[in-house]
């Protein structure tokens, strides 16, 4: 187990180094001269000397690998520079916005766990029943629906026609419900179908026949054997979707005017605020990588065979 974790963490380090290189490449292929952009924020018509002075000050005249090295060292210190639009430190802005995003995604995870497992289990047990078919149709619609549109439909239904919620609301627990549902629905739909089909394929395995032959009750077989063996792919997908939802929150946050990290990133893109974009992208990637690692570790605990 310890060996396994060590190997995973080594792999993680390689991936993280790659992630920083890739983020650095993404940020440096911009056709806009960053030195010029930086000067233009302060001086409307800069002279060539002023631009060159800033270029030297920001270290943009160094060879690319030295720039990367300097950038990496700063990133490790948590210093992504100052935002070009808000003029705060990028890292401070990000940590100010992150809790709002995490609260939606956390609530969405709750919906997903509460809905996916019972529904998938019932559908698998009552395969080809009317309920199973209904769930199948709903989930195909659910994965095909644009999340921003779903958000508007929910707003239209529950804030305009039946005013239970307020359209622009932030802070209370109630305000979390609509955005978190919007972000959770596509994940619930795809995970339900996935869990249903894994359970069904596990039901045909020899160990189920053996358990039946031993005279165990159906509910014991389901809960103790089948469900447990069907979990690994779902847990991997669940952890990945956590990372996805944090990234995908950009669109939903825009619909609900939610002051989270996703909205912050969109504003940064429109303001061509490169330091903020890079910082946010790097932090989101790190969160995503950690989620994937957690998925592996949890699977390993539940089902130790995988590591062998």
């Amino acid at each position, binding site marked *: 187990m310890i060996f396994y974790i060590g190997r995973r963490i080594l*792999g993680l380090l*390689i*991936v*993280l180094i*790659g*992630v920083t*290189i*890739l*983020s650095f490449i*993404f*940020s*440096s*292929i*911009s*056709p*806009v001269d960053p030195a010029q952009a930086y000067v233009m924020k302060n001086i409307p018509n800069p002279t060539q000397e002023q631009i060159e002075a800033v270029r030297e000050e920001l270290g943009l005249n160094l060879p690319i690998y030295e720039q990367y090295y300097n950038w990496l060292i700063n990133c490790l210190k948590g210093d992504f520079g100052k935002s070009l639009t808000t003029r705060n430190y990028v890292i401070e802005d990000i940590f100010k916005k992150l809790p709002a995003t995490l609260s939606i995604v956390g609530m969405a995870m709750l919906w997903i766990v509460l809905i996916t497992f019972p529904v998938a289990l019932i559908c698998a047990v009552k395969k080809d029943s009317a309920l199973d078919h209904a769930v199948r149709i709903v989930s*195909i*619609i659910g*994965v*095909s*629906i*644009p*999340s*921003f*549109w779903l958000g*508007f*439909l929910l*707003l*239209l239904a529950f804030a*305009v026609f039946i005013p239970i919620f307020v*359209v622009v609301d932030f802070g209370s627990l109630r305000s979390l419900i609509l955005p978190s549902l919007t972000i959770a629905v596509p994940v619930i739909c795809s995970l339900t179908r996935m869990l249903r089909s894994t359970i069904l394929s596990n039901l045909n395995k020899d160990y189920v026949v053996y358990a039946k032959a031993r005279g165990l009750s159906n509910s014991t077989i389901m809960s103790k054997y089948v469900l447990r063996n069907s979990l690994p792919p779902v847990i991997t997908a669940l952890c990945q979707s956590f*990372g*996805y939802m*944090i*990234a*995908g929150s*950009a*669109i939903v946050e*825009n*619909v609900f005017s939610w002051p989270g990290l996703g909205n912050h*990133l*969109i504003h*940064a*893109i*429109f303001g*061509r605020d*490169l330091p903020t*974009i*890079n910082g946010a*992208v790097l932090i*989101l*990637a790190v969160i*995503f*990588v950690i989620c*994937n690692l957690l998925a592996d570790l949890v699977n390993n605990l539940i089902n130790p065979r995988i590591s062998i």
Partner: protein
Amino acid sequence: MFRDIIKNTQAMVGLTILLIIFIFALFAPYLAQNDPVDVNPVLKFKEPSSNYPLGTDNLGRCVYSRLIHGARYSLFIAIPILFSLAFISIILGTITAYYGGLFDKILNVICNIFMAFPPLIIVLSLVGSLGQGMINIAVSVVISMWVWFVRVIRSYVLEEKNKQYVISARISGCSDFRIILKHIMPNTMPQIIVYFSTGISGIILMISGFAFLGIGIEKGLPEWGAMLSDGKSNLYSNPQLLIYPGVCILLTAAGFNLFGEALRDIISKEEG
């Protein structure tokens, strides 16, 4: 196989929806009676009439004509993206899975690195640096998705590679090229088509999401996501402006998903 598809209701519903949308996209200028970008402020928020079958929007543009033209953007951006992804992933996925070795290992590390970024984030970051524009969006989507496609194709080929018939073909002296082209490709193709069919609905949703955020698509163009974004300020007074384009996106994505999923059922039944 084709007989199975025709007998399958779900596959046919999906295909019919797709066919209708393709007809809309191809013959948009003939089917739409008004210019989709013609602004006419005098006529704003008109009720449906014979001239404007679905009424007009906040700038007096014909909603029906805009919806018809919108099919072009969704399909004609998503399809080239899918073809580029298919080209890259089939070549790289098949070769690395078939030959293995160092190249496979290197590609594996690259895949892990790219997969550390959710595709949406790569696109946002690239558009942030490259700037707006439809081509930039398309290129960014390809860069963000190719590793996922390569991984999937690679896993299909890996599974196929060790089957009896491939080994027999090799023993009977088939060249690698022939084995890949004549034996592995045809046998993995159904699975690949299923994956691409559900993949393109994801791409369509992604593109319309960007258009909704105002990324990539020029303002005023009749793209469905962009129309939704235009309509959001009239959420209370004219909710239909939000509902129509959403239904169009939903139907297009559902068409591909219905067809893809039905095809998957048919294939898994054939394999027993």
